[in-house]
């Protein structure tokens, strides 16, 4: 790392001063003159027909400016997934039916939130309650009530861009009801593989719905100027260009008539990329009334009506040789996506996508089903499928290792993929630090001494300790709209630069890391870079801060833009010095002759020369980079064909827990993560990403769970939804394995998501190591631990 001046260092964030002084503007802080406030009336029923809505009394309340119901916008449909196979199934307001408790029925725009709320109480809705389903198993029964009767057609951005994809129907449509997606992938011959195995094990694992808990509630401010004919938006989001695209389609506005302005996003974790009714309705109401409209969800609405992580059941059958070599794996996954598809058809694809890059499995069969139920809607959440599938696979590998008397660390080392491997879909592992990560994570937790598995006598004491390990993988971006990032670097007279990037800062530190990439490439300091970002009008396209594409895709675009500016600078300097570009070198904003360092020009002089000699060109560098340079296609969600990502980030995670066998309480004492992020563009920021992932993973392993009873959410608050607090913080070791990804800028790839995924299995395996009992459904609550301990005692006596 020492060859670099700016990247690789843990430099302070460029947005730090704004944020510690309370000056950073988040979407909830945006307030415009004459702004109205919107509030939703929501369904109290999990499944019901809307017979009639009477809004007259609400409309007459002083201060109310508009009451909108679904009838007026019945033709509007949108969704995170909108393809020929999976057409959009969401509407901003229910038209004839509600499908979960919290579904939007009407929206009021009023002069204050209080008036809007009062108006809601005056709206009368007549419902006809329908039978409802709350588990995928019920929903798939042949006589189950159907949630979505209508068949639509869908067009993705691919069709918009002229790349028509073949229209397919569900292959299992006739066998299962309420299916929102199916993924089916095979390689090798799984039946034959299972026969070749010395040992076959079958298990079922289950994960819980969890909440993102971004601290900033979801909010949108929309301001339509009827004279200008333009819609101005402030959105708490992760991808401004994807939002602009989806909202312009839904609102039937030309894309150039929609501008997303900059505001900081107060955390997202996957939960702010879908298009939401509050965004559409704020925009629609503003267009209708010609006034700014703000809709800010309250915390209960955020918990109930935005998105949650999919609860997934994973049925796993794995065959291994005596030495632990995996021969065959048969995976069946059922995800409950709630009343609308959300990202159901994506998560069942990603459960495969984040599983197959890790172990070499010669015979493999994967089937994923996503199912509609009358539960809240599920969408992407940090790791998106990875925590669920990694929990299952590494929990089972631990069980297999125990059965065969093997050390799981050795079994993992025997099975993991390595650099140079080509995955079955064609993705190349140009960098892969799994092996080193496993060794470091095991060493970091003191594996040989701490692992009870190898102790001669079982523990008898009340407080028992044990350790566990798990691995994870994550994409570094994929081919999702707008398919690429671009960047502009503008030089100033004093040799400093402004970076224009469409990346969106939501806490991950992209303004800082991208500024570092620019500074390094251009040979200036971080303090010399000013960042203009997160505005669809001021900046070029950006792939968005989801699927972990920021460092690699946007990073490459920024690096290329800076290189372009540097090339122009050097050409001017070469002219001034009467030398060739190859004879020059750059240091401290000066360009020297390598052979005669006393001869130099400053950046300022080179820029001035460019203005005078090149018809006023002040030196502007541009660069762009595709989400996946080798393909023009989005991979098939249903068949897993096509290229997924140009680089995988990897991590190994170990956990040491202490279990109180009297109360069942599990405490995470120590968490060790070794993440292969290729190269850390900013060491402090990379550590912060890993630490945030570890904390979230710990919460989801031990305490976090959306509790539903017939579709009604029981814990929509921070008091009842138990996420980690400061006093829960374990000893955290986060190390980096540097593998220098050849496709990444300075070798960088994913770091922001993967490390949430290994925590669940690492903790579950550690609990087993400590106590001898396995909890196979998340979260590992004291009740479940006690129940398992009691059951085992009964079985033993």
């Amino acid at each position, binding site marked *: 790392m020492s060859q670099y001046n700016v990247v690789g260092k843990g430099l302070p964030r460029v947005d730090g001063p704004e944020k510690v002084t309370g000056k950073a503007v*988040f979407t909830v802080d945006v307030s415009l003159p004459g702004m109205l406030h919107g509030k939703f009336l929501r369904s109290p029923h999990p499944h019901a027909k809307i017979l009639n809505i009477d809004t007259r009394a609400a409309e007459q309340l002083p201060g109310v400016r508009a009451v909108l119901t679904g009838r007026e916008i019945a033709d509007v449909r949108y969704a995170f997934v909108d393809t020929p196979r999976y057409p959009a199934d969401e509407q901003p307001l229910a038209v004839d039916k509600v499908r979960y408790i919290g579904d939007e029925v009407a929206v009021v725009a009023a002069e204050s939130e209080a008036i809007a709320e009062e108006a809601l109480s005056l709206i009368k809705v007549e419902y006809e309650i329908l039978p409802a389903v709350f588990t995928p198993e019920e929903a798939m029964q042949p006589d189950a009530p159907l949630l979505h009767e209508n068949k639509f057609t869908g067009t993705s951005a691919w069709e918009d861009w002229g790349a028509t994809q073949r229209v397919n129907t569900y292959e299992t449509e006739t066998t299962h009801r309420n299916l929102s997606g199916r993924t089916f992938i095979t390689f090798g011959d799984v039946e034959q593989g299972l026969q070749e195995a010395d040992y076959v094990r079958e298990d079922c694992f289950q994960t819980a719905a969890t909440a993102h808990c971004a*601290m900033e509630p979801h909010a949108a401010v929309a301001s339509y100027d009827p004279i200008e004919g333009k819609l101005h938006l402030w959105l708490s989001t992760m991808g401004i260009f994807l939002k602009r695209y989806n909202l312009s389609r839904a609102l039937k506005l030309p894309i150039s008539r929609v501008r997303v302005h900059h505001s900081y996003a107060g955390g997202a974790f996957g939960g702010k990329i879908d298009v939401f009714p509050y965004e559409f309705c704020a925009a629609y109401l503003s267009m209708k009334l010609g006034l700014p409209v703000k809709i800010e969800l309250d915390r209960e609405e955020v918990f109930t009506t935005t998105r949650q992580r999919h609860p997934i059941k994973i049925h796993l059958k794995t065959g291994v040789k005596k030495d632990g070599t995996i021969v065959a794996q048969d995976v069946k996954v059922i995800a409950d996506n709630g009343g609308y598809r959300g990202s159901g058809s994506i998560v069942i694809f990603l459960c495969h996508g984040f599983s197959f890059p890790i172990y070499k499995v010669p015979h493999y069969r994967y089937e994923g089903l996503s199912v509609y139920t009358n539960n809240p809607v599920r969408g992407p959440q940090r790791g998106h499928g990875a925590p669920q599938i990694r929990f299952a696979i590494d929990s089972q590998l631990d069980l297999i290792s125990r059965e065969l008397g093997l050390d799981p660390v050795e079994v993992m080392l025997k099975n993991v993929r390595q650099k140079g491997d080509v995955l079955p879909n064609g993705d190349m592992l140009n960098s892969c630090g799994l092996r080193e990560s496993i060794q470091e994570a095991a060493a970091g937790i003191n594996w040989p001494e701490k692992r009870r598995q190898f102790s001669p006598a079982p523990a008898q004491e009340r407080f028992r300790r044990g350790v566990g390990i798990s691995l994870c993988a994550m994409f570094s971006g994929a081919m999702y709209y707008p398919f690429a990032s671009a960047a502009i670097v503008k030089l100033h007279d004093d040799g400093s630069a402004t970076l224009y990037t469409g990346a969106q800062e939501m*806490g*991950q530190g992209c303004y800082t890391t991208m500024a570092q990439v620019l500074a390094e490439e251009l040979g200036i300091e971080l303090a010399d870079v000013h960042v203009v970002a997160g505005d669809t009008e001021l900046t070029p396209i950006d792939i968005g801060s989801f699927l972990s594409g920021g460092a690699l895709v946007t990073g490459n675009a920024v690096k290329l833009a800076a290189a372009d500016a540097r090339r122009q600078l050097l050409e001017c300097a070469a002219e001034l010095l009467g030398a060739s570009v190859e004879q020059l070198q750059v240091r401290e904003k000066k360009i020297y002759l390598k052979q005669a360092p006393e001869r130099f020009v400053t950046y300022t002089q080179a820029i001035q020369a460019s203005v005078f000699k090149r018809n006023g060109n002040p030196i502007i560098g541009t660069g762009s980079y595709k989400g996946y340079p080798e393909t023009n296609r989005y991979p098939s969600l249903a068949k897993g064909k096509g290229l997924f990502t140009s680089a995988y980030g990897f991590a190994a995670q170990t956990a040491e827990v202490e279990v109180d066998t009297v109360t069942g309480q599990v405490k995470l004492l120590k968490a060790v993560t070794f993440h292969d992020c290729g190269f850390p563009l900013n060491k402090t920021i990379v550590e912060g990403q890993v630490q945030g992932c570890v904390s979230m993973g710990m919460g989801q392993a031990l305490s976090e769970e959306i509790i539903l009873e017939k579709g009604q959410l029981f814990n929509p608050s921070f008091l009842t939804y138990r996420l980690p*607090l*400061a006093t829960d913080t374990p000893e955290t070791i986060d190390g980096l394995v540097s593998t220098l990804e050849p496709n990444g800028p300075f070798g960088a790839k994913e770091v922001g998501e993967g490390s949430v995924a290994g925590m669940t299995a690492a903790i579950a395996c550690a609990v087993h190591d400590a106590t001898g009992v396995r909890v196979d459904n998340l979260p590992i609550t004291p009740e479940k631990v006690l129940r398992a301990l009691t059951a085992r005692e009964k079985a033993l006596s």
Partner: protein
Amino acid sequence: MKKLIKLTVNGIQREIEVEPRQTLLEVLREDLGLTGAKKGCNQGECGACTVLLDGQAVSSCLVLAVRAHGKTVLTAEGLATDGQLHALQQAFIAHGAVQCGFCTSGMLLSAKALLDRNPHLTTREIEESIDGNICRCTGYVKIIEAISAVAQNKNS
């Protein structure tokens, strides 16, 4: 019926007409434009709205504005003095304790209330002092490091 309240906010004396139902958080954000205090849950559970009321850390979403009459309020906007960031603000930046920034104001003020009262802090006391401030980004590690660094500097 509006009530006139007098209070000192970040060193400036203010007279404001408020609705009896308005919270201190609403008055700070909507009437005074001090949006550093955040509305994360509006029910006293997340800590993002923490401000100092006569030196005490309070959830300003749970304090009616009329109760702040005659009192002194400090928000994140008032932490820096004479163009100099407060030691806690500097430490939060230096240690990478800021990510999305939404919890930051509240964290800083909870930490300040604690340090003002007791500069000799154990890690456990620091963790307890910010247990009412939820952060989803950092896993708290770097926040605890930043506050510890300031506490150690005070002691030395």
